[in-house]
């Protein structure tokens, strides 16, 4: 898609304006990947946390091993694994999905620990009251425990979101054309890296700042006692 373009590298200003449209296309890919990855991390992380707290030792132990594995191996390795090894088992995913999945899996391992901490911080009396009222374990989690854990876990979750956004450039190695991959490609063609890389760096900085500010507001807006989920 880039072959039709000629970039005007005469001044940094003309260079910036000529590459901005394509960088912004990359930005949408970056945002989509981060959003999809984070959504996977939030859902899967909760599942990991609950399974890890299962009373069945086989389940909690297996989950612990999986989580530990995901946490302790590099994202790049996991990404290549999904991209090159899964197709050998007949599972062929689009590059974007593979990338989002890799991000989501690794960050699910992180968020599961956040969930676990948040869940364990809820007073034991809350479980006892839920039991005395004959709620099932699932009902207790959904209606009593997790709603109270949410305000406590938001700050740590926010940090992981920011960290994940900053890790999206790694997806360029499996041909996902996010911002960083595009900037690199532009540099390869023009032999002028300074402007595209600076531009991308600044956009990442802006994204991170916006996220942090948004999280700060969210944190303030959330009721400290918790939020009912239904």
């Amino acid at each position, binding site marked *: 898609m880039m072959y039709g373009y000629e970039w005007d590298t005469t001044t940094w200003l003309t260079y910036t304006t000529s590459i901005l449209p394509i960088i912004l296309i990359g930005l949408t890919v970056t945002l989509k990947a981060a959003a999809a990855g984070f959504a996977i991390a939030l859902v899967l992380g909760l599942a990991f946390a609950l399974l890890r707290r299962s*009373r069945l030792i086989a389940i909690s132990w297996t989950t612990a091993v999986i989580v530990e594995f995901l946490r302790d191996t590099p994202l790049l390795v996991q990404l290549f694994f999904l991209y090159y090894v899964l197709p050998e088992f007949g599972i062929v995913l689009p590059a974007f999905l593979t990338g989002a999945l890799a991000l989501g899996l690794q960050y699910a391992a992180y968020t599961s620990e956040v969930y676990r901490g948040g869940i364990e911080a809820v*007073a034991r*009396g*809350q479980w*006892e*009251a839920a*039991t*005395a*009222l*004959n*709620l*099932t*374990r699932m*009902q207790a989690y959904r*209606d*009593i425990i997790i*709603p*109270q854990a949410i305000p406590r876990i938001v700050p740590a979750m926010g940090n992981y979101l920011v960290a994940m956004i900053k890790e999206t450039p790694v997806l360029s190695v499996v041909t996902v054309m996010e911002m960083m991959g595009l900037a690199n490609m532009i540099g390869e063609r023009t032999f002028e890296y300074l402007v595209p890389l600076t531009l991308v760096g600044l956009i990442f900085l802006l994204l991170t700042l916006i996220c942090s500010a948004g999280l700060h507001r969210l944190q303030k807006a959330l*009721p400290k*006692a*918790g*939020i*009912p989920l239904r």
Partner: protein
Amino acid sequence: MTEDNTAPIIEFSNVAKRFGPLTVLDDFNFTVRKGEKVTLIGPSGSGKSTVLRILMTLEPFQDGRLTLSGMSYHEPNGKGPFKASERHLRQIRTHVGMVFQSFNLFPHMTVLRNVVEAPLRVLGIARAEAECRALQLLDMVGLADKKDFYPSQLSGGQQQRVAIARALAMRPRVLLFDEPTSALDPQLVGEVLSVIRGLAHEHDLTMLLVTHEMRFAREVSDRVCFFDKGRICEQGAPDEIFGAPREARTREFLSSVLA
């Protein structure tokens, strides 16, 4: 009153409860008749809370037999610490409710929602009906006007009254109170006791109450059990226990708390 009311609803036979190496109940025997109001008193660590928590299935016990309305807590081939399936435990819990020393209201829910939640989710009662009944119960504890408040906006006494309404909303046959006024400022104790006093007149409701309010125990209970080191050292009608205790340990304890 009726013949039914003399039947035992709770029966501990030779129950043993251990926390690791610590034996809290050993060869424990205790029977409660349907509708009876029983107060458990005794020194700290004597096992009063443990008895209630076992009844509420919050704690498993190791040996012996416990039945509620003839239903055994342990199942013949029951697994896990409770020696029973979750399904069986839930069956038992439909008959028992508990009021805690620290209230344990759900802080993220309004008063009304606290009371309505379990009837809605567990008993499957329609919302309109559950709310209607919750309001009646809140009215009974004098807090209908606080239905949209959150627990943190209430005094301790008000929170405990909500907790009582919440427990009653599940229509338990047996209601357990573990030091329901111990966490309260002295001036708030009375309002909670008067709600409990009202319940003492419900003669289908079996009540077990752990308390340090001796005058109240004497007034509301049919029977007082003095616990010492995991055993019921002495029990009898309140006038006997408070008026003419037979055991030296009972006299010692009573003189220390009534002093």
